[in-house]
């Protein structure tokens, strides 16, 4: 099987990256749908359309979620780097 020639390997890699990205985006989308509905849409349903307040809330909720996501991502990266640094220091001390 000559499946793994250069071109097909590159194509497959691109496909898998796209697939992975789509999946991650779907997960985030669904979390936002859930969280922002709780915070912005009252449950008494007096009308079919989103009124002005609800629309504004939804837009703001979305931006905030994106900001929070970025901050959490940075925080996790910072914390994991700290762990890596601690491990490196411990390894350095152990080998002395």
């Amino acid at each position: 099987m000559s499946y793994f020639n250069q071109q097909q390997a590159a194509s497959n890699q691109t496909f898998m990256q796209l697939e992975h990205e789509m999946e991650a985006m779907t997960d985030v989308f669904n979390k936002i749908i859930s969280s922002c509905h709780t915070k912005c849409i009252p449950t008494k349903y007096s009308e079919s359309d989103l009124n002005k307040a609800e629309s504004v809330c939804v837009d703001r909720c979305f931006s905030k979620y994106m900001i929070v996501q970025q901050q959490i991502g940075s925080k996790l990266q910072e914390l994991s780097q700290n762990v890596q640094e601690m491990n490196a220091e411990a390894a350095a001390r152990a080998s002395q």
Partner: protein
Amino acid sequence: MDINALTPYDRNRFMAMMEEKQVKDSLRLYHNLVERCFLDCANDFTTKTLTAKEEACVNKCCDKFLKYSARIGQRFAEQNTAMVDIQQQLISENASQ
């Protein structure tokens, strides 16, 4: 991510994946809607069918959720232009074949 690296075979795989995703998303949307509108609107339980008030509530609940969901989708697409461009490119190339 170089889209032009995709072979015709993998382009088809991508289109198939998108269609499958759309089906899954529609199913999920349906189940979410039913559960939500049931919890929020069905409160009477003394009659053999939904009351007119409950039916009206369910209709508004659906409309509102769909519009809400579409708005989030718009904001989301504005945020993720790269992916949207990729999708648009692959779809139009597929359509012109």
